[in-house]
């Protein structure tokens, strides 16, 4: 075995270019026109060994992936890149990274992922083990619902969501509910063949969890962002159903209104192995780029421990935060969907069983579902958005997942863990 030279052992890093699909050949030609010597991975297909520097070329082009790594002359590259990006030949560029093996202290996430993979494999071979976790905790709900306690909202929480607009797209909202007297509420109907009112109650419950008051009448505190501005879009009709048309219209309304968060406790089942809708990938990305975080319910189609159903649409889009439900023991709710379709992960978990909130007609009711978990996340997002104006869109997403508390359950089921308020 030849002893590697220092250059081969530790090559200098360059720039990684991702070509727009279908434009890779044109991109390579531009690089060649700019004086770069390009070597393609296909040139080494028959070789027993691919040299780490592609035989001394300036550019290493990975044909199958539409990726090129440019390791020389960054100044010359900058001018080529400028026109290539403007002409949509190159869709992204970033500095090349150096990777290394992880030691036991290096990455808890990596180890969790590894553990999940092993457990998954064992489950497949031997059948799933019974879910285990802490015994149901005794929560005193005299002043606060168990859900608010679990996510750290309480008397010491200074943030209220004041000045932050929260959109809840659902079955509507009973704005005459006594708990919301004096609150800033904007309602809009998007569902067809429906009244403007919440005849179902689901929407009023979700608004209550995200935006309910600090001191409700005759109930413990159940709302997270108690001074936020409520935008209730009725996208699910009186028959309990909505379509892309109503949902997308509601999302655009919320975005145009300057909402920092859109909460969607709705979904459609997704078959095992199906891909997410590109439509919602695109819409979620546009919202995040514009400073608006979209959170959506992961779905209730599981029957644990035997069956774990894939994350529903639109939560399965990678640009929409998928919310799973946990019970009072902080274990995944038996109905909560999991990240079983590749790349369609649960992102975070929140209380979704036995959740008390506002109900149509002025009262309160306990419900369960990932629908109930989702507005907890929307409420905490509003608190974070109030505390720091830079917490919008992608940054808000990152902050929510950073604060999440690790749980015993697999990341497939609870994502980064249990939602936590600042």
């Amino acid at each position, binding site marked *: 075995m030849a002893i590697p030279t220092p250059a081969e052992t530790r090559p200098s890093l360059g720039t990684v270019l991702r070509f*727009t699909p279908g434009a890779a050949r044109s991109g390579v030609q531009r690089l060649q026109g700019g004086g770069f010597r390009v070597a393609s991975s296909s040139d080494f297909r028959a070789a027993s060994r691919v040299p780490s520097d592609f035989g001394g070329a300036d550019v290493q082009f990975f044909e199958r992936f539409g990726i090129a790594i440019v390791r020389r002359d960054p100044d010359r590259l900058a001018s080529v890149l400028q026109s290539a990006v403007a002409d*949509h030949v190159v869709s992204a560029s970033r500095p090349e990274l150096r990777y290394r093996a992880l030691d036991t202290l290096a990455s808890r996430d990596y180890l969790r992922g590894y553990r999940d993979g092993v457990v998954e494999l064992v489950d497949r071979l031997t059948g799933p083990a019974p879910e285990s976790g802490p015994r149901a905790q005794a929560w005193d709900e005299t002043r606060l619902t168990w859900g608010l306690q679990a996510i750290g909202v309480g008397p010491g929480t200074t943030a209220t969501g004041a000045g932050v607009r929260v959109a809840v797209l*659902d*079955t509507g909202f009973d704005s005459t509910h006594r708990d919301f007297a004096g609150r800033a509420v904007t309602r809009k109907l998007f569902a067809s063949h429906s009244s403007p009112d919440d005849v*179902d109650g*689901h*929407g009023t419950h979700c608004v209550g969890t995200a935006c309910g008051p600090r001191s409700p009448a005759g109930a413990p505190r159940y709302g997270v962002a108690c001074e936020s501005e409520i935008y209730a879009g009725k*996208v*699910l009709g009186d028959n*309990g*159903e*909505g*379509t*892309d*048309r109503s*949902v*997308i*219209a509601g*999302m*655009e309304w919320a*975005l*145009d209104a300057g909402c920092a968060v859109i909460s969607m*406790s*709705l*979904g*459609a089942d997704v078959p095992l192995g199906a891909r997410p*809708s*590109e*439509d919602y990938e*695109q*819409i979620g990305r*546009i919202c995040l780029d514009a400073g608006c975080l979209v959170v959506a*319910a992961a*779905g*209730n189609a599981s029957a644990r421990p035997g069956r774990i159903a894939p994350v*529903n*649409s639109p939560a399965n889009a990678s640009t929409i935060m998928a919310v799973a439900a946990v019970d009072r023991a902080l274990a995944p709710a038996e109905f909560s969907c999991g990240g079983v379709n590749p790349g369609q992960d649960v992102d975070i978990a929140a209380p979704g069983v036995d959740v008390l909130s506002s109900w149509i007609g002025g009262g309160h009711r306990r419900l369960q*579902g*990932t*629908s109930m978990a*989702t507005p907890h996340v929307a409420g905490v997002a509003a608190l974070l958005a109030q505390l720091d104006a830079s917490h919008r869109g992608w940054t808000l997403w990152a902050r929510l997942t950073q604060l999440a508390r690790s749980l015993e359950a697999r990341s497939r089921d609870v994502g980064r863990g249990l939602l936590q308020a600042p």
Partner: protein
Amino acid sequence: MDTGAAQTEVTVRIDPRSGAERFDAIVADLRAAGLCDIEPRPRFFIVSGRVGYQDLSPLSRIEGVASVRATEVFKPL
């Protein structure tokens, strides 16, 4: 254009690379190709509408259209 034939509700995704300036022209092309009851969402590059089954394929061949799919039905969870 409503031919009275069986129609389906669809969601049309416009390729954002086609540029916002072409959005209106693409919507006009969609209308000419049989899409009716149109609701354009330019901020999302999305168009909702209804179309006869026989006009589904022509819609997806319009320049700048990335995808055409039957509308999904959502329920509270």
